[in-house]
């Protein structure tokens, strides 16, 4: 991986990675520092060995640095950072309901769902980032979608 590829990866991935880390540490400046540190580590690592999935590697290292910065041994739960109203000018009621339902998910399910749907990591990459077996990732994602469906179905029935 040469410097051009790393620069391209930075332009593409850094904003999304920063958003992920910000949800972990809850601090904008801290998230930016961690992203910079992560890419510095990527520059060093890329010169030494070949990375199978640089994106997964970036997320894993960023997550580790975020946990280290908070001096926590347990995995960091994703923080509730959803805006009060979506960025869209015409807030969709369904989207609002979905945001509330996602908020109610457990942190482990929410993090797996976040990595899959927003950051578009594969099951294998999520397993690498979270340091858990592939089956656990699949199970968490299935549970998350099922739970969302049940919550939304219940809310639609109440209306």
């Amino acid at each position, binding site marked *: 991986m040469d410097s051009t590829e*790393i*620069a391209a990866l*930075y332009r593409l991935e*850094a*904003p*999304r990675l*920063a*958003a992920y880390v*910000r*949800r972990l540490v809850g601090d*904008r*400046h*801290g*998230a*930016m*520092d961690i*992203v*910079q*540190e992560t*890419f*510095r580590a990527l*520059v060093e690592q890329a010169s030494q060995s070949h990375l199978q999935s640089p994106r997964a590697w970036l997320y894993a290292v960023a997550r580790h640095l975020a946990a280290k910065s908070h001096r926590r041994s347990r995995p960091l739960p994703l923080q509730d*950072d*959803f*805006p009060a109203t*979506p*960025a*869209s000018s015409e807030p969709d009621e*369904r*989207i609002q309901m*979905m*945001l509330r339902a*996602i908020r109610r998910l457990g942190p482990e399910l929410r993090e797996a*769902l*976040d990595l*899959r*749907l*927003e950051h578009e990591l*594969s*099951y294998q990459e999520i397993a690498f980032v979270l340091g858990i077996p592939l089956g656990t990732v*699949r199970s968490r*994602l*299935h549970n998350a*979608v*099922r739970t*969302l*469906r049940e919550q*939304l*179905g219940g809310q639609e029935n109440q209306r």
Partner: protein
Amino acid sequence: MNVEPHLLERLMLDRALGQLSEDVEALLAAVVAEDAGRNSRQSELLTTAAQAHEAMKRRSVSAGLELPPLAARPRQRSRWRAAVMAIAMAGCLLVGLSARWLFPRERQLPAPEPSVVVVPAPTPAMRTSELWSLQAFIDTTKATQDRRKPLVNWHSPSEMQVREIEQ
């Protein structure tokens, strides 16, 4: 085609999450199309995942993050923290020096000379025996041994110095 319901559910969830290969997805679509209930369930899951995807995309967190060019100033935050630490330590030092200046310690008095107490050595027992007798020899030897006991000498100024005086 007869497929176990729990296996079908898992495949439908994988499809909703976009993790099925094209071949498996086509096969699953064919199986689901056979049954209205399965079709309905598949639609629910697809809609839920799509809505969740859209909701997550609408989050405006990344909009406020303007990242600097790569490795332009990677240690800026650390330097700032180091500066804060240095200022805090300098402040502590200043407070300590101010306290020393405001509340000076009383002058220390010179340590008192160690007092010397003279303890008379135990006198030998009165000789009751003859001068050249065996008992006189034993008594004399015993008294000599008592005199050779080590001196008690405390070097601490707060303690007494005890010196034995031979008589």
